[in-house]
């Protein structure tokens, strides 16, 4: 049965009680609770909280609550995401500051973090005049940010054991391909000859294992907050894992994330060479263009399998979202791109 989404009023009441308890506050007022779009499988609520502290001090916070509607296979728990955000912030990656780890107040795991103003909708970032300046700067900024992400010392933050990593004795490429193939075979409602071709191609060309790093896992437009001055914040760390840093650079170049600006492979704003140059100059790993190409093919397969996964949530009755239902028909665009990429190398 599809689970009914809580109303904003219900969420406001629960968050008010939670904040009052957590801050030991005299009073808390929660306003403007809104369910944000995006994050199709999980819920993100936006709200303002006015807290009257025990010492009489008043504080108004713009906050986000990230909650699990349901635990999704392969996604990290909210608790690990919270700690990952703390670690990324400590290493200078622009991320929202976490505010509080939640409890069972919302009937589902959640945490609170600061709300950062700005634009996440790709169509506006790529088309509106307001972001012309940002578009000029973004490619270099994205390279610099990824270099910082890949420097986050997850061991020091106690995260190494909590994040997914390569399978024992296997390279990140081999492991991730094995995982996505397994997911594909277990969820697909119909055969996909194009994906079979892609899996053959990828298996025959596995890149060697390099030095491991924290990989964001979903670094693309839609998960970045952009202002007129450029990138403000990196969101949605729930696919973060230990792996090959080339994976993030390639995912950013997957055609679906160009939102129609096909000639600008980096997020629809820039060229690969400029991304690579900025990444290496900012202390990122040495770029291997052949490995990045392999990961871009892999990325298209991965996004195609994610499309099927989201459609499955609709087909299995876990959600009645028209967005999830129609994403099933976006699988073909990844098949098309896979055929093009394989033909050219």
């Amino acid at each position, binding site marked *: 049965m599809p689970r009914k989404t809580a109303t904003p009023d219900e969420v406001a009441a629960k968050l008010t009680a939670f904040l009052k308890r957590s801050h030991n506050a005299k009073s808390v007022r929660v306003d403007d609770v809104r369910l944000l779009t995006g994050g199709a499988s999980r819920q993100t609520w936006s709200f303002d909280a006015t807290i009257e502290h025990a010492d009489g001090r008043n504080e108004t916070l713009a906050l986000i609550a990230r909650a699990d509607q349901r635990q999704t296979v392969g996604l990290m728990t909210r608790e690990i995401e919270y700690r990952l955000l703390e670690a990324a912030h400590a290493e200078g990656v622009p991320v929202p500051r976490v505010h509080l780890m939640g409890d069972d107040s919302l009937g589902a795991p959640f945490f609170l973090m600061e709300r950062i103003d700005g634009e996440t909708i790709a169509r506006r970032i790529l088309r509106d005049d307001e972001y012309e300046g940002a578009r000029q700067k973004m490619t270099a900024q994205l390279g610099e940010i990824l270099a910082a992400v890949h420097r986050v010392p997850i061991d020091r933050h106690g995260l190494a054991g909590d994040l997914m990593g390569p399978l024992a004795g296997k390279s990140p490429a081999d492991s991730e391909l094995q995982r996505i193939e397994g997911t594909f075979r277990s969820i697909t409602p119909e055969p996909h000859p194009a994906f079979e*071709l892609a899996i053959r191609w990828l298996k025959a060309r596995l890149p060697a294992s390099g030095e491991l790093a924290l990989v964001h896992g979903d670094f693309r437009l839609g998960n970045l907050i952009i202002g007129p001055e450029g990138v403000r914040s990196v969101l949605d760390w729930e696919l973060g894992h230990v792996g090959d840093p080339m994976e993030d650079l390639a995912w950013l170049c997957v055609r679906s994330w160009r939102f129609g600006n096909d000639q600008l492979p980096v997020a629809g704003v820039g060229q690969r060479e400029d991304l690579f140059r900025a990444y290496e100059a900012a202390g990122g790993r040495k770029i291997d263009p052949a490995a990045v190409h392999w990961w871009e093919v892999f990325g298209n397969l991965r996004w195609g399998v994610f499309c099927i996964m989201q459609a499955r949530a609709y087909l299995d009755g876990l959600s009645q979202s028209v967005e999830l239902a129609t994403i099933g*028909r976006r699988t073909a665009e990844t098949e098309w791109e896979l*055929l093009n990429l394989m033909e050219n190398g």
Partner: protein
Amino acid sequence: MQDRPTYDELLAAVEHFLDTEIVPNVPGSRGFHARVAANAIRIIRRELSNEEDQLAAEWSGLDAVLGPAERPAGRKQLRTALLERNEALCTLIRSGDADDGEAARKVLEHVQRTVRDKLTVSDPALLERS
């Protein structure tokens, strides 16, 4: 046989209503979903107008790769048989027998055509940009 409007004409009315009345006037998540819903109507309209030709073309494409077979008459039977033949094509690809040479060329040609047909329905703008 039903009276006018035809299904396509009815769907066009729903599409127009969503595009002109709902999408511009409803903010936030609901407005976004109305945009998605209007796009779903467009996908359905394109599928209905192409379905017969595309299913037939896919069958003959599979004939070229797997060897000829008799095409079932009914639409439902045809869809079921197509799923089975696509499973057979996937098995062929996984076996490695279509990795190179003439077999590889034939399989690729067929897969390219069927994916193009899917995009003609789901995202024709992407094909125009390709």
